[in-house]
């Protein structure tokens, strides 16, 4: 219980810091720190638009004032000085920047050649030691296309071949030469875990464990048992509890665990609530097993990803404060995806305190999170469910996604003080015809559909641009 509380509350506090605070657990020290610098930019008044704040509100004929990279004010008839550039949003809609909690941009970039296959460390079933950020190729042309779809932040995850695939990283979707220059300051790491068919197929196919779902669970448990011991060995003990037979007594500075183990660092960070748990898990029964696993070892699940059966467990997910990051309509490509329905997100969203998220897992889907949500709204209407409003649906890819990633203090809504991550759409975003016109990250306009600035062009595209 203590660990659950720590995970729920501690992360929110942690996420306020721009880097792991001094004295942060050694398990989450970062030798590869963010070098992201906001580009700042001019003050901007986006005026007379239909504003979806990401807090569930819709303001018609409203304004959003951006200054110094932050949202300053949201409301009607805002006053702004002559130094403020004006963006006429009449007939257009304004939303927070979209956030994809599940992307493989950079680790499975375009073109998808063998040399670029950097998303799955398929050499052992538990590779909690690997960090997706070390595979990210910042020149993936997919980043710019996602930006054109309104995506301002994303979590890049390892693939799902492994029980524990490694750490994910949250990036700001800005053009950069290094991934550190994209790394979202203060965002906690995620860890990618996977249920079901993938790990057992990959390893069972090689004649090694796991080869079954029960083998999967045994694999998670063994790893977390090791991590629990590792924590115990690495926790400075009060002097009065010291014993003459304490094996690691000679280690330095109270860190008595001996040599660092990168794999166990990550899992220990999970147990201590500093690394957020994202689990690829399709079936409802397996999600339930994973929730029990989390209780067994005292960690919290931030989100189940792909969960095509999440609708069968919607109440439990909401009650436990677990998000579900889902597609609108993918199903049937494998057995554990056979029960997919188009109302999944709407049903997961239905209980009080739910946390439904639209995610992509796809370089195409990340460009159209808004259209995925539109499908859900239509499916719910067809099923005669209560109307899902645009101001509510936008939370599935803004505020809820930020919550799952632990960056909700910085982004995900248009509230004063938040990062000025903003999209101006050419109309209602919940449509096949919707296009992002302008996309701001920390107040700087990185995408301008019709203007001369256009969108960023990756080095890879140079000399072979499509005109």
């Amino acid at each position, binding site marked *: 219980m203590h660990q659950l509380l720590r995970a729920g509350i501690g992360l929110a506090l942690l996420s306020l810091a721009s880097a792991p605070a001094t004295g942060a657990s050694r398990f989450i020290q970062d030798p590869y720190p963010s070098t992201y610098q906001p580009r700042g930019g001019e003050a901007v008044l986006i005026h007379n638009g239909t504003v979806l704040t990401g807090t569930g509100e819709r303001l018609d004929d409203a304004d959003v004032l951006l200054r110094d990279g932050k949202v300053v004010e949201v409301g009607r008839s805002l006053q702004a000085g002559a130094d403020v550039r004006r963006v006429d949003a009449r007939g257009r809609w304004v939303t927070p920047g979209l956030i994809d909690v599940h992307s493989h941009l950079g680790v499975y970039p*375009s*073109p*998808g*050649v063998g040399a670029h296959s950097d998303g799955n460390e398929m050499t052992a079933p538990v590779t909690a030691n690997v960090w997706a950020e070390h595979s990210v190729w910042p020149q993936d*042309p*997919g980043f710019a*296309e996602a930006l054109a779809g309104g995506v301002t932040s994303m979590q890049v995850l390892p693939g799902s071949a492994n029980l524990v695939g490694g750490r994910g990283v949250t990036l700001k979707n800005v053009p950069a030469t290094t991934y550190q220059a994209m790394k979202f300051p203060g965002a906690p790491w995620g860890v990618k875990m996977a249920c079901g*068919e993938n790990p057992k197929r990959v390893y069972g196919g090689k004649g090694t464990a796991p080869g079954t779902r029960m083998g999967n669970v045994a694999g998670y448990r063994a790893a977390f048992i090791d991590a629990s011991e590792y924590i115990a060995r690495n926790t400075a003990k009060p002097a009065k509890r010291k014993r003459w037979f304490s094996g690691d007594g000679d280690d330095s500075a109270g860190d008595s665990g001996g040599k660092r183990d990168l794999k166990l660092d990550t899992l220990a960070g999970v147990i201590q609530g500093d690394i957020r748990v994202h689990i690829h898990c399709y079936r*409802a029964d397996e999600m339930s097993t994973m929730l029990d696993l989390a209780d067994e070892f005292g960690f919290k699940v931030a989100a189940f990803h792909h969960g095509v059966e999440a*609708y*069968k*467990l*919607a*109440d*439990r997910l909401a009650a436990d404060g677990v998000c579900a990051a889902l597609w609108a*309509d*993918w*199903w*049937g*490509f*494998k*057995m554990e995806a*056979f*029960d*997919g*329905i*188009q*109302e999944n997100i709407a*049903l997961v969203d239905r209980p009080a305190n739910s946390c439904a998220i639209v995610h992509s897992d*796809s*370089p*195409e889907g990340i*460009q*159209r999170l808004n*259209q995925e949500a*539109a*499908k859900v*709204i*239509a*499916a719910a*209407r*067809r*099923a*005669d*469910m209560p109307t899902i409003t645009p101001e509510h649906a936008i939370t599935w890819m803004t505020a809820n996604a930020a919550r799952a990633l632990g960056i909700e203090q910085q982004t995900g809504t248009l509230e004063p003080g938040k990062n000025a991550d903003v999209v101006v759409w050419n109309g209602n975003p*919940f*449509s*096949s*015809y*919707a*296009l992002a016109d302008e996309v701001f990250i920390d107040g700087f306009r990185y995408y301008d559909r019709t203007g001369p600035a256009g969108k960023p062009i990756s080095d*890879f*595209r140079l000399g*072979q641009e*499509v005109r």
Partner: protein
Amino acid sequence: MSADTITRMFGGAWLGPAVMLLACAAGGANAQDLLIRNATVHTAGARGSLDNTDVLVRGGIIQAVGPALAAPAGMTVVEADGRPLTPALFGGITEIGIEEVSGESSTVDSTLKLGEQPLRPEFDVTLAYNPASVLVPVARVEGIGFTALGAHTGGGFVAGQGGVVRLDGSADPIGPRALYLRLGSAAAELTGQSRAAQWMLLQQMVDEARGRVGADSPHALLTPAGRRTLSDYLAGNGRIIVEVDRASDIRQLLRWAAREKVKVAIAGGAEAWQLAAELAQAHVPVFVDGLGNLPGTFDQIGATLENAARLHRAGVEVSFAQSGDASHNARKVRQLAGNAVAHGLPWADALAGLTRVPAQAMGVGERIGSIEPGKLADLVLWEGDPLDVAHYAEQVWLGGRAMPMRSRQTELRDRYLRRTASP
């Protein structure tokens, strides 16, 4: 129309209340007779879009399209209240009914992998078609009425044959077969690691089919059945659908097709826009992936969301086909068309790309693909814009018969929609 169908059509909450049954005689009404009144009829034919228009169906065939048509006594009448009525949509090139769960090979029949003599144009996936597949109603409730079954490249770059099936539960394809093959990097590993070898192998197969290589040659690539099949296509019977992306490969394809006088179509065609004029001149239709804009491979460097619009502007007939999960998620084809509109394709041409164009390209345009007298009454009444994912199909008729707007997915939905707590 049976009472049961009416109950399912009009009793369910998923159907908008504005669809009202005005008259249905207790007896004598033919299940394939119907008057749809006051629709915005998008004919996808020569008459374009017609406001306040009625469509009269008798015996499953469209009889008349016009204003204020009279309903014979006892005929089922549906009030459309101005909502859009379109031909039933094309679901793309799919494996609907020839695969059930993509990852489970025991349920997949779309791909031939014969080790010896892998080049088997005579392979015909329509023989495996299962009209009882759960994929059929899942696609149908979304307004999809027909699809091109595609053979999938497995053992050889010539995948085999497919054909058009209507998703009305009927067992057999309609119209001619089509032959599928794949060119470029995606097929290079099947052709000795070089795309150049694809032309070498294709030329030899043509030589065999044209009788220029003896049937007893030790170098024959084709079986006798394969020679017969290929010679049919070489004689202009049926279309060869080629999955290809790179402009240079498309150029070679156009030369080959002109030389051998075969009818081809392109599927994918990421860089087809670069040869738009040539494709238009050769009357080669293109099934584009309307969402493809990334260089997923080096064959797709020129991929752009404007592909469909640019092809259309040059006079190419444009339809749609998905990469990715084309079968289970065939319904996504509407999204491809809608996004093509957002990137410059006229709306009417996007709708034609989901109806008339693929029907004609697949050789079934005389029977389906437009709302015109004499055509099969394969129709969809929409709750809103059919090319916008924000709207949905309200009712589908195939051959004038109202299709139940149910699928395994709606059954699952309704079970859990009613459930208030997870056990």
